[in-house]
């Protein structure tokens, strides 16, 4: 493990409070603190850097959401939690790709996190659904919707950005797009 990374490991309390307070710095520290651990695990178990990135980010998102939801009890070290979650995710991926997962080389203690991972998978499915609905929408609808709902731009900004003659026209367009998006999104 890299020394410069190790020295900046934040305390678990610091991380949790930071995330609850939307502190970017806390997330930053958290991310950098345990990346090497997961990278080592993935690299030594049939994975590459990209796999490590995907798995680690998923793990961080799970932790983040759990803390945000307010039901994270610090019953173990964050490190162990992250490791267990990432391990679980990676084993699932390996078995999905029917790659060999016979001899897993472990570097940390592990505890059961199946529930959290499964809960996350449901959430992720909703995420993927929304993403594909947006992709199906086509331009300029996609950008208008994204600007309004995700980047929180005002209708005035959107009107100017796309060059609508007035905000009412832009609004009408937005609602048309929204109707289509909802139709796609609620499709069974």
């Amino acid at each position, binding site marked *: 493990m890299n020394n410069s990374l190790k020295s900046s490991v934040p305390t678990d309390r610091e991380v949790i409070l930071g995330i609850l307070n939307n502190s970017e710095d806390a997330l930053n520290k958290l991310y950098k603190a345990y990346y*090497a651990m997961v990278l080592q695990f993935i*690299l030594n178990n049939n994975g590459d850097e990209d796999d490590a990135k995907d798995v680690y980010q998923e793990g961080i998102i799970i932790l983040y959401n759990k803390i945000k939801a307010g039901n994270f009890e610090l019953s173990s070290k964050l490190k162990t939690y992250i490791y267990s979650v990432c391990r679980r995710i990676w084993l699932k991926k390996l078995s999905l790709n029917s790659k060999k997962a016979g001899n897993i080389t472990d570097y940390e203690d592990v505890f059961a996190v199946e529930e959290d991972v499964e809960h996350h998978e449901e959430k992720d499915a909703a995420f993927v659904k929304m993403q594909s609905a947006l992709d199906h929408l086509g331009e300029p609808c996609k950008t208008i919707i994204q600007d309004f709902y995700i980047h929180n731009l005002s209708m005035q900004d959107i009107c100017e950005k796309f060059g609508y003659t007035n905000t009412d026209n832009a609004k009408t367009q937005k609602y048309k797009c929204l*109707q289509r998006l909802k139709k796609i999104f609620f499709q069974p």
Partner: protein
Amino acid sequence: MRNDLELDAIIEDYLLGKLNAQETEAFEQLRRNDATVDHKVVSHKFFLESMGTFAEQLRLKEQLNHIHSEIDVEGLADTLRPHPSKIVQLWRKNKSVVAVAASFIVLSLVSIYSIQHNSKQEANYEKMSRELSRVKQSQNNLVLDIKASTQHNSPKKANPGNFGGTGFAVSTNGYILTNLHVVNGADSLYVQNSKGESFKVKSVYTDPQNDIAILKISDKHFNGLSTIPYTIKKSISNIGENVYTLGYPKDDIVLGEGSVSSRSGFIGDTTQYQVSILVNPGNSGGPLLDNNGNLVGIISGKQDQTEGAAFAIKSKYILEAMRAIPQDSLGVNRLGTNKKSLLSGLKRTKQIEKLEDYVFMIKVY
């Protein structure tokens, strides 16, 4: 269409709390009265929540990607990647195990060292020729003297020699194969058949490397044998194959049964088999046969201090030894590999009945 869009706009404003009190009141009235509108509100609320989570996750992912780009992934990966050298990899994985194993080895070495210095234990190879006591020998010599003077024309009767062993016929005209260590250094050699008749033999071939000797009966009372019932097995025997031997550890023929337990002999000697037959002094030179009456080897010795580990020279070396003898002198009816064994399919008792005449006690003076 136009109405729909307006309705959507109102619903969204309502959900986002952008309507003023009066409008809210009016809209809630509308919701209560119109189920379709009510349903639209609920579904839009769900949609907005989904969108909200989506936006949140998307932002989080972007943030993580941003942080990720600050990390020197390449450099980290290089130090953490499984090392190309298997040894380093093993070491990294099993540091603690190796440490435990090493200390265990040290401990066991120490204890082995101390045990060895307390009691010397060595496995030795015992050649299974029979050495008889001098007293008995001298007494028998007396008997021999008396008998020799009285019975001159009949075949000589039993009289144990200094050493004893077993041998078996490899041709009908009196060639007998045994272990070299049985006959080595002999002044004179006799063989005795199961009926108790003795014949004088002389050694015609010795192979010190494989411990094989071939004797030839040179006694004028010897009338030749009928067809040799067994054949030589060319292939290597499998572990677990049932085998048996006949020999003369005492003055009567004795059967020893067991199985091939290893394809190599004493300290990995590949010219021999290890067999689980209990052999005793006197068994040396005995034929080792399988269930079908194929000659698998020659019993040659055992490991002392180990029970049930006897060794037999592989049959291939019998063939080699036989090739060393002038082929004409062996005669037509000799031991071969191609013929079918006359013993195959017979019960063990019948096999032995047939075999008895071909297994000889070797007496060495």
